[in-house]
């Protein structure tokens, strides 16, 4: 044997064997391990074996046979180890992906994770991916999101960034969703538009993959009979992968992936890995979509619940108001009749008593007080009415004419001139007729006993946007704005019950109907009232 070869030595020194590296010190003291790991490949050992063979040693051919078989098995084991390592990485990645997908119910987040996983180097490493989603309402498979570089320059920049940042899948996906989702959507907008395929187009390769529920590796795309030329031109690649997303036998969407930049061949193994990945993605997408729908329904139910609660409160309030109304009516009836009888008989007696009767003063007091109490009663009843307005569409002219008819005799007897100038083609207004006619009467009769010399009341009506404006100008009553404002406040110093609550009540009634009431006074020009009557039902509160 050649003394230079160390195969037969129990212990060797560093440098005795050229195949043993510095970090393999354990091999220096283990002959068996060294023989298995290094000698089989060592040319000096093979030379020794050759020499034995040449010397006619019968063990030499047997040993050579063992050696060949050992090397074959070693290669096979190494290949299997490599395969297992890859699979371990893939399982780890799928585990990470599954965890990320499982923890999200946001559709955009799920899609970001899915496309990042397909295109990230630590994932499936495809250059570009598009996600299409089934839209059952429109009957199409619709391009929804794309991810990947458009050209080599962009690819180098992006991949370099990713490589340097060394982010895990979840961080990558979050980063994409926050910073790139909208820009990628915009970047691939044209492609996504064209990637929309009707589900009824059964000859289209994409629909075939979807219906077949199996991935399709498309090669020779430009010559492929099932690939429409516009799709091949759109993608601009000869080879791409179609991976249907199926969840519980339901078609969810499709992933179209390719290597448009590197043109690396897509292998069968890539396809199988992506197929494994497709199921959790499809499931997550479906779950996120259902969650979205659930959220919409939940919002609807919440909104309905809110409305129901409002309605309940309204009903309770209305019941309370109706009760108040009934009680008030009952009191009114009970009080008004005795008041009328007292006042009526007092008047009757006053009429027939001689002027010298000392008891006339008492009777006059009874008459005055009953009149005052009747006024109080009117205002309480009117306030009770104002609590529940009943609105409908009414003609403005009819409203004004009714109020004028009720007040005309009184106004003309006091020397007032009333001019009504109706607007042209006025639309119906949405109001409580009773309350509005009461308000108009009150405004008109409030003007009686004005202190100005010009006893003219002018009423104008005109149509405006979604409303009719009623303007009442009274030049007879000359009061300051402060005095008028006080008249509009219920129970202020100038508005005792039964003596001037009318205007304040009008304002309250109109406010309850959401009708703006504006009153402006000028010591020289009198008072101008503007009442804005809505013409739309929706304008009501």
């Amino acid at each position: 044997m050649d003394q230079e070869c160390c195969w037969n030595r129990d212990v060797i020194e560093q440098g005795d064997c050229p195949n043993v590296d510095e970090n393999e010190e354990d091999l220096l003291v283990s002959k068996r391990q060294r023989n298995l790991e290094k000698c089989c490949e060592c040319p000096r050992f093979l030379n020794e074996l050759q020499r034995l063979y040449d010397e006619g040693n019968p063990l030499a051919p047997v040993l050579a046979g063992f050696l060949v078989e050992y090397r074959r098995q070693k290669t096979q084991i190494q290949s299997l180890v490599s395969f297992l390592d890859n699979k371990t990485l893939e399982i780890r990645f799928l585990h990470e992906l599954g965890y990320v997908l499982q923890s999200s119910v946001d559709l955009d987040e799920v899609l970001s994770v899915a496309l990042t996983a397909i295109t990230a180097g630590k994932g499936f490493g495809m250059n570009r991916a598009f996600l299409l989603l089934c839209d059952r309402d429109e009957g199409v498979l619709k391009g929804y999101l794309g991810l990947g570089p458009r050209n080599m320059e962009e690819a180098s920049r992006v991949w370099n960034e990713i490589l340097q940042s060394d982010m895990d899948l979840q961080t990558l996906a979050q980063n994409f969703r926050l910073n790139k989702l909208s820009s990628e959507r915009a970047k691939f907008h044209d492609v996504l538009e064209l990637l929309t395929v009707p589900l009824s187009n059964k000859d289209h390769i994409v629909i075939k993959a979807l219906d077949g529920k199996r991935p399709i590796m498309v090669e020779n795309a430009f010559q492929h009979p099932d690939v429409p030329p516009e799709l091949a031109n759109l993608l601009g690649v000869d080879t791409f992968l179609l991976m249907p997303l199926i969840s519980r036998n339901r078609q969810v969407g499709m992933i179209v992936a390719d290597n448009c930049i590197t043109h690396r061949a897509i292998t069968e193994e890539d396809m199988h890995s992506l197929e494994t990945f497709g199921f959790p993605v499809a499931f997550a997408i479906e779950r996120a979509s259902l969650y979205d729908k659930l959220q919409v329904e939940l919002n609807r139910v919440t909104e309905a619940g809110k409305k129901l609660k409002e309605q309940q409160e309204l009903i309770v309030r209305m019941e309370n108001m109706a009760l108040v109304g009934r009680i008030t009516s009952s009191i009114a009836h009970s009080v008004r009749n005795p008041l009328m009888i007292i006042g009526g008989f007092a008047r009757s007696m006053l009429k027939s008593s001689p002027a010298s009767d000392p008891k006339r003063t008492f009777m006059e007091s009874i008459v005055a007080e009953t009149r005052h109490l009747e006024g109080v009663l009117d205002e309480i009843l009117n306030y009770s009415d104002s609590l529940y307005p009943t609105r409908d569409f009414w003609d403005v002219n009819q409203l004004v004419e009714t109020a004028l008819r009720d007040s005309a005799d009184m106004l003309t007897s006091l020397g007032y001139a009333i001019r009504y100038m109706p607007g042209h083609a006025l639309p119906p207004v949405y109001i409580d007729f009773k309350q509005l006619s009461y308000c108009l009467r009150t405004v008109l009769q409030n003007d009686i006993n004005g202190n100005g010399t010009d006893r003219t009341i002018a009423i104008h009506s005109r149509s405006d946007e979604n409303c009719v404006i009623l303007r009442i100008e009274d030049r007879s009553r000359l009061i300051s704005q402060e005095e008028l404002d006080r008249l509009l406040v219920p129970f202020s110093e100038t508005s005792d019950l039964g003596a001037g609550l009318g205007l304040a009540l009008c304002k309250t009634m109109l406010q309850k109907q959401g009708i703006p009431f504006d009153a402006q006074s000028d010591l020289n020009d009198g008072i101008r009232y503007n009442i804005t009557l809505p013409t739309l039902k929706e304008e009501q509160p």
Partner: protein
Amino acid sequence: MIRLLVVDDEANIRLLYTEELKDEGYEVVTAASSAEAVEKLQGSTFDLAVLDIKLKNESGIELLQKLVKERHNMPVVLCSAFSCYKDDFSAWLADGYVVKSGDLTELKHEIARVLAKKAQKGKAGEK
């Protein structure tokens, strides 16, 4: 003499109306309920009826509808403790409406106005 039918469930109000309206030169017949009013209407004719809207457990509006249907020549003036009926459709069938008050001037004025209107209509019909 002009004959008026006054329908009100309050005896004192009937008395007050009778006294005051007699002073105005009318012949006044009173009724305390719808049934009594119908009974009196069957026996004779009236130029005008004054109706209260609330008649104990009855509705004066129902009596009004009946009168308008069966006695369309006899005008009706509603007299009520409730001012809200003034703008109520159901009350619009009446020829006049007044809110009850110790001061009967408005009622007397309304009765005179409605009777004048009726007389005017009658004259127009004769022509």
